[in-house]
């Protein structure tokens, strides 16, 4: 029996190489597809996401503090500060050229500085300002059914010019306290750190 080994034709090595190349390519594609399949999202349902977002927005709108920021009294140049909370609209006592209470002029600041108290027990009190503050406090007491003479917790915001002397401020604060306002706030113009650095 004889056998004969037929030498390969000239095209067979090329075919063999092409087959190897195809198998490698197919394996590479399969690996790549497996990689992509690992991270592929089949379906993204946005409806629960939108529902949750609407609920959060609604809750925020309902529970957020509703109120206007306090406007600055005309003619008052407030001092600047980097600390403090945003001030909501309150009963405002302005001290610029005029002393104003809730936007209404009470007396001139010069007169307030020179006013003498008519109560020896309270030498710091400014009588016309005391009368205006007492009337305001009494109206709040009547509205909230608070007994006369009891101090009220409604905040009184003081917006004073930055050039005002402390002796006048102390007299104003003492007058407000005697009139029944126990919750006084000093309002300032808020500046940010960036504004301070750039100036």
């Amino acid at each position, binding site marked *: 029996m004889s056998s004969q080994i037929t030498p390969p034709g000239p095209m067979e090595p090329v075919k063999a190489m092409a087959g190897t190349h195809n198998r490698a390519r197919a394996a590479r594609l399969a690996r790549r597809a497996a990689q992509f399949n690992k991270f592929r999202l089949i379906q993204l349902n946005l409806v629960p996401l939108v529902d949750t977002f609407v609920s959060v927005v609604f809750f925020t709108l309902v529970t957020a503090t509703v109120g206007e920021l306090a406007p600055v009294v005309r003619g008052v140049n407030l001092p600047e500060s980097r600390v403090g909370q945003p001030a909501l609209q309150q009963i405002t006592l302005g001290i610029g050229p005029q002393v104003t209470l809730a936007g209404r002029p009470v007396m001139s600041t010069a007169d307030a500085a020179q006013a003498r108290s008519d109560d020896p027990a309270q030498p*710091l009190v400014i009588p016309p300002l005391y009368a205006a503050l007492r009337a305001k406090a009494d109206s709040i007491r009547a509205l909230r059914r608070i007994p006369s003479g009891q101090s009220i917790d409604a905040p009184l915001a003081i917006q004073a010019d930055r050039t005002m002397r*402390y002796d006048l401020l102390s007299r104003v604060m003492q007058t407000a306290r005697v009139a029944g306002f126990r919750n*006084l706030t000093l309002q300032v113009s808020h500046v940010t750190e960036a504004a301070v650095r750039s100036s």
Partner: protein
Amino acid sequence: MTEIRRRYPQNADVLVVPADDVAYDDLIHVLERLRVASFSAISLGNRTRATQVAAVEGRSVGAAR
């Protein structure tokens, strides 16, 4: 003030007694420093009359537009 606050952490109250001619602007800056130094109970007093005018607590120094 920050150093004092750090040295005496149990003491958070401070009494400010400005002179009569101190400008409101300077007073606000002093109060601002005290707030930055974490003093939570700040009082304003009056030197000449030796009476406490008001207590400036945590929320009493507000900011307006």
